[in-house]
């Protein structure tokens, strides 16, 4: 009942090679149409989200300054939580993909953007934009499979360490921003001695600098501004960081691990054609259904399928693109994995627990 579909080779699934290429050509056509259509409304949208995030952050920090007053603490913490979620997901993640680079706006430049989380933006761009998006769901290459600490695929050989899978997952969710910060470092390879520490020195320095700045800001400077009442903003900031961590973990783990998503092996994807690449992205991703607000708060990663097909198209377009992609999937008989959050996350939790045991 809870068995995952074992991955068929991307090109040798239910479609013929020719069908895969035709499907790819249809995806290319959607992409070109969207590139031609993107413009003022997309730029206005992302600037509006940024404006909202900045104002929420100012409001949140202002209210937490007076956090001894319980309603102010609650409202401030909520505002700051949403601010951090918007900053990381709808703004940071999408801007750093270069989705809004065509605006020539340094503030929307993928390469110049820095976000309100522990992970240095440049390292994220490497581990996420390049590694994860190019080698999506290829076991051994895509480090998003388990983040180096979890067993999220049957292809990962079981070790007794993985008995703690649910515990490690809970810890990763709680401290998710640090998990992401260490993502590109490949800690487990450092520990195993596969990579010399010297090689990673620059990276470690970058992480340390960013973590220090973030920690100073949230846990020293802003609390200090409240003087003897520092505990209120301190607790509010910690809560906001926690809320963002749990939310980001939940959404991100629903992107590739719900039941029905496929994993791939390196050999299957050698000399992949463009059509096969699209097909693999589609089979490896899952969507979440929900309201417009839910999609914005999830950084439109609720349209994980569309995001993986078109990682650099403006995320605010994914909703309209999804209608076409879904229709194409129906025509080709390709499974389109979508469900509400509780269903998709439920199946992720089941998988985390199931893979704790050898099999």
């Amino acid at each position: 009942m809870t068995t995952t579909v074992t991955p068929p080779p991307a090109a040798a699934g239910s479609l013929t090679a020719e069908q895969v290429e035709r499907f790819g050509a249809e995806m290319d056509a959607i992409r070109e149409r969207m590139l031609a259509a993107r413009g003022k409304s997309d730029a206005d949208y992302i600037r509006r989200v940024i404006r909202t995030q900045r104002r929420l952050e100012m409001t949140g920090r202002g209210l937490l300054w007076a956090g001894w007053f319980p309603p102010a603490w609650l409202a401030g913490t909520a505002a700051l939580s949403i601010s951090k979620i918007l900053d990381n997901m709808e703004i940071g993640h999408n801007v750093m993909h270069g989705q809004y680079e065509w605006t020539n706006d340094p503030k929307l430049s993928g390469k110049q953007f820095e976000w309100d989380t522990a992970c240095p933006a440049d390292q994220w761009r490497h581990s996420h934009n390049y590694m994860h998006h190019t080698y999506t769901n290829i076991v051994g290459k895509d480090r998003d499979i388990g983040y180096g600490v979890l067993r999220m695929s049957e292809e990962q050989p079981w070790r007794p360490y993985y008995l703690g899978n649910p515990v490690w997952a809970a810890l990763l969710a709680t401290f998710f921003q640090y998990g992401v910060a260490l993502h590109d470092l490949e800690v487990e390879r450092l520990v195993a001695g596969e990579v010399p520490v010297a090689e990673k020195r620059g990276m470690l320095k970058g992480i340390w600098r960013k973590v220090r700045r973030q920690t100073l800001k949230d846990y020293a400077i802003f609390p200090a501004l409240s003087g003897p009442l520092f505990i209120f903003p301190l607790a509010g900031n910690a809560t906001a960081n926690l809320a963002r961590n749990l939310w980001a973990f939940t959404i991100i783990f629903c992107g590739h691990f719900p039941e029905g998503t496929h994993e791939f092996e390196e050999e299957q994807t050698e000399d992949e054609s463009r059509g096969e690449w699209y097909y693999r992205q589609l089979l490896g991703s899952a969507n979440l259904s929900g309201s417009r607000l839910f999609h914005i708060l999830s950084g439109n990663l609720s349209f994980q399928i569309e995001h993986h097909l078109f990682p650099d198209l403006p995320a605010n377009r994914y909703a309209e693109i999804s209608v076409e992609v879904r229709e194409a999937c129906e025509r080709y008989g390709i499974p389109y994995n979508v469900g509400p959050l509780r269903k998709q996350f439920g199946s992720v939790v089941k998988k985390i627990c199931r893979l704790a045991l050898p099999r």
Partner: protein
Amino acid sequence: MCDEPTFDVTTFDVTLICVMPATLAPRHPGTRLLDTIAGPHGIDAYLEQIHPLLTTERRAEVVAASRDAEDSVTLTLRPNRAWKGHEAGQFVQVTVEIDGVLHRRCYSPASGEGRRGELEITVKRHPGGLVSGFLNDHAGPGLVLGLSGAEGEFRLPSRRPDPILLIAGGSGVTPLMAMLRTLFAEGHRGTVAMLQYAPSPAAAIYREELEGMARRHPNFHLARSYTRAPGAGELDGRFSPLHLPQSEPCFAAAETFACGPPELLDAVRGTWANGLEQRLHVESFVPPDLAVAGGPGEGTVRLLDSGLELENSGASLLEQAEQAGLRPEYGCRMGICHTCTCRKVSGVHKNLITGEVSSAPGEEIQICVSTALGDLALEL
């Protein structure tokens, strides 16, 4: 650079010098601590929520727009506190948002020198010009523009020379106007002459103000040539050495400042040969929207940061840079990850996946899937 090495030439190619992103503009050192607190977005991200001009980044608001001369608009800008003034003759980079996209262009303020005062720029409409067209059609009070600091070596020496000769072609009159206004505001007593070239009286920028100046200041001599309206001005036709003796003082003795299109400047340079070069200062105004597309394997690819010039092979820009021995950052090499994105300063590029061709300067492009059509300059 090699053809006329002795000239004191400050020629700039507008599309070439607009390379400094606004975020790299020098910032007040006192804001650095604030930036740590306001990190990672910086204090301006929050200040601009209160008022767009409250930033530590230079910005200006349009307070007036007048359209006196045909096909040009004169904007009066009120810069914010970050603006530190300019010297007469210098230029600024102005950033304007059009349909969500930021565009940067260079303009020489026509206003006189001043630390914090209002700034005046005049924008002539170029045929097909996106920014000049937008500003001519839509700029009005309330529009907020990005601003760089004043730049450029084309400026009045602080010890004001005497006599002075100014040669203006089209919108090239603007930096010279800044010089005139500065000189007369200072009560300059020396002799100043100006030759102005424009298609017609109606298209002559600052015509009335210049005529007023000539009436008020007996030491200012103004001569105009309207190239498409013979007989309407004091002179006729394009620049020729014959135009010079008719204006006082003798050009050979004057410190000369010339600004206009390249053809005018070439003619002027030809006249100022034989040891007079040191007295000639020129600034070229090249419309940036007119990058010309060449063939896929034609022209030169210039990598500005590494100082390389490559013969365009028609391969992707990433491959060409690698063949030249550079190791640019890259990831997927298929146009997905944006790791290799670079700023194209000028030139026409083609996206090898979509086939899209674009000539806009200052664009961020993915060099793994872009090739040059003709000459192209890249920040790499």
